[in-house]
C-alpha cells in the first residue's frame, strides 16, 4: 500500500485516546466478570473472597486489567516496529495457549500420541496436499486460458468444469470418485481417489484465481509483447504470468492452506491423515479435545511455515514488478 510521507501523531501518545481506550477496556472486562478468574485471586487482599466480592470486586478486577492492558500497549509503542510486532505476537500466543490450557487437558495423553500423529498423519496430509495443489495449478492455468479464450467448446468445458467442481461438496466428489469409478469398471485406491478429488476441486477454484490474475494485466503489455512477434504461449509464460504472480499468490496461498485441512475429508474413505488420527486416537478414552487441539497446533505450525514461504515469493515478484 502507499506509504504516505506524512506520519500522523501516534494515537497512543494522545491522553484523550488513552483514556478512551481505558474506558472501553474497563467496560469490556467488567461485562465478562473477571473477579472469578486468577485476577480475583491476586486481588484477594483488597477485595476479600473473590466469589463474594460482588460489584466492588468485579470493578476492581476490571480496572486492574484495563490499566494493565493500556499500559502494556503504551509500553509496546515505545519500541521500534519490529520489536513491537514480536512482543504483540508473543503476548497473543501466550493468551491463546492459556485459553487452550483452560480446557483442562491431559498432557500425558497428548505426549503418548503425538509421535504417531506426526510420522503417519502429518506426512500423509502434506503428501496428499502437495501433490494435489501441483496438479490443481496445472489444471488452473489450462482452465483459465480456456475460460478467457474465444473458443466456444473450450469455454463451455472449462466453465462447466468450474461450475460443477466448485458446486459439488468436496465430500461428494470424494464419494463419487471412490464409489462411482468402480461402477464403470475401475476400482481405485483411497489415496489416488483422494488426490484426484482434491486436484479437481481445487483446480476449479484456482481457475478463477488465475483468470482474475491474467485479466488484470493491462492491455499494453500484451500489445508490446505481441507487436514484437512473441507468440501467445511465450507472451503468457514470460510476460503475463510473471506479472500476475503477486496477484495470484495470496489467494493461492489461501487455497493451499485450506487444502491442508480439506484433505482431511479423504479420511472418510479411510486414509490415515492427520485429522483422521486426531478423531480416532481420542475415541477410546473420550479424549477428543486433546487430540483435536494437538492436530490444530500442528496445522497452525504448518500454516505459519507456508505463510513465510508465501511472503518470500510475493516479495520477490513484487520487487520486480513494482510500478
Amino acid at each position: 500500500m502507499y506509504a504516505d510521507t506524512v506520519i500522523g501523531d501516534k494515537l497512543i501518545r494522545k491522553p484523550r485516546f488513552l483514556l478512551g481506550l481505558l474506558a472501553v477496556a474497563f467496560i469490556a472486562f467488567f461485562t465478562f466478570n473477571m473477579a472469578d478468574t486468577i485476577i480475583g485471586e491476586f486481588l484477594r487482599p483488597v477485595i476479600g473472597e473473590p466469589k463474594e466480592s460482588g460489584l466492588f470486586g468485579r470493578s476492581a478486577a476490571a480496572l486492574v486489567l484495563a490499566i494493565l492492558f493500556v499500559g502494556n500497549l503504551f509500553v509496546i509503542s515505545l519500541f521500534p516496529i519490529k520489536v513491537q510486532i514480536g512482543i504483540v505476537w508473543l503476548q497473543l500466543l501466550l493468551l491463546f495457549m492459556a485459553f487452550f490450557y483452560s480446557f483442562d487437558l491431559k498432557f500425558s495423553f497428548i505426549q503418548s500420541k503425538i509421535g504417531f500423529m506426526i510420522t503417519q498423519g502429518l506426512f500423509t496430509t502434506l503428501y496428499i496436499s502437495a501433490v494435489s495443489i501441483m496438479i490443481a495449478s496445472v489444471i488452473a492455468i489450462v482452465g483459465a486460458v480456456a475460460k478467457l479464450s474465444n473458443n466456444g467448446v473450450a469455454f463451455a468445458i472449462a466453465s462447466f468444469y468450474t461450475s460443477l467442481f466448485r458446486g459439488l461438496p468436496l465430500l461428494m466428489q470424494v464419494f463419487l470418485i471412490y464409489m462411482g469409478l468402480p461402477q464403470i469398471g475401475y476400482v481405485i485406491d483411497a489415496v489416488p481417489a483422494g488426490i484426484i478429488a482434491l486436484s479437481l476441486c481445487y483446480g476449479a477454484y484456482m481457475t478463477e484465481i488465475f483468470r482474475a490474475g491474467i485479466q488484470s494485466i493491462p492491455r499494453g503489455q500484451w500489445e508490446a509483447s505481441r507487436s514484437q512477434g512473441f507468440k501467445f504461449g511465450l507472451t503468457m509464460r514470460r510476460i503475463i504470468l510473471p506479472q500476475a504472480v503477486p496477484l495470484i499468490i495470496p489467494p493461492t496461498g489461501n487455497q493451499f492452506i485450506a487444502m491442508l485441512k480439506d484433505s482431511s475429508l479423504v479420511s472418510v474413505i479411510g486414509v490415515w491423515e492427520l485429522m483422521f488420527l486426531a478423531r480416532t486416537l481420542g475415541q477410546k478414552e473420550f479424549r477428543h479435545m486433546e487430540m483435536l487441539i494437538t492436530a490444530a497446533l500442528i496445522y497452525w505450525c504448518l500454516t505459519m511455515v507456508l505463510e513465510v514461504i508465501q511472503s518470500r515469493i510475493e516479495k520477490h515478484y513484487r520487487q520486480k514488478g513494482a510500478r
Partner: protein
Amino acid sequence: MSQNNQKPASDNLVISMEGVSKWFGEFQVLKDINLSVRQGERIVICGPSGSGKSTLIRCLNRLEAHQEGTIRVDGIEMHERMKNIDEVRQDIGMVFQHFNLFPHMTVLENCMAGPNWVRGVPKAEAKERAMAMLTRVKIPEQADKYPSQLSGGQQQRVAIARSLCMEPKVMLFDEPTSALDPEMVAEVLDTMVGLAESGMTMICVTHEMGFARKVGDLVVFMDEGKIVERNNPTDFFDNPQSERTKLFLSQILSH
C-alpha cells in the same frame, strides 16, 4: 534479415493501405485511408489530438483490426485469417505512446528479450546489441534498473532501444519524443536520422517539425480520421494547400 519481398506489382512497396476504414463501435476513427510507403521512405504523420494517428499506425501491425479496405506489409495482406502474423510483426518495430515496457524485467532484459526469444540470437550477443542500443540512446548506465525506477524520458528511450534491438525492417514511432527534453529530443531525432540514412523505412507520428523537414520524404496531415493533405516537407510547410493545414501550421509557428 530476410530479403525484401519483391512482388512484381508492388514496386518495392513495403506498406500499402487502400481504402482503409475503421470504427470503434459507432464512431469512425479512420475514413478511407490510402497510403503507400516504399522501402527506405520516411513518412511523418501529424495532426490534431484524437485525429486517429495512433490508430492508423496500430493498424499497420494489426494491433487494431480495420473493417474495410486492405493493408499490405511487405506484400502480405493483413487480415483476420493470416498465418504468419508473428513473422510480419518481428519485422515491424513499434515505439508506443505509453512505452509499455515490461515492468518485471530490467532495462537490459527488456531489450534482450526480443532478439533472444524470437530471433534466436544467443544471450551474449543479444546483450551486446542491447548495450549498444542503450548507449545510442545515452542510458547505458540504467541497464540494470527496473522501468519503474526511471524518469519519463528515460523510459521512452528504453522503449526506442528495445525496438531497435529487433533490427526491424520498418519502424513505427508513436510520438517518440513526447516525454523528452529538447536536448534528448535532438539526440533521439539524430538517432532516427541515422536510421533513416541507413535506409530504414519509418513512419513517425510526431509534431517535431524540424525533424519532418530534415528527414521526412512525405508529411501526412490527418484530421478527424481523414488524410487531409500529403506533400513533401518543403511544400507542406511553405505552401500548404488546405485551409485546415494552414490553420494547424499557423498554431505551430506562432509559439
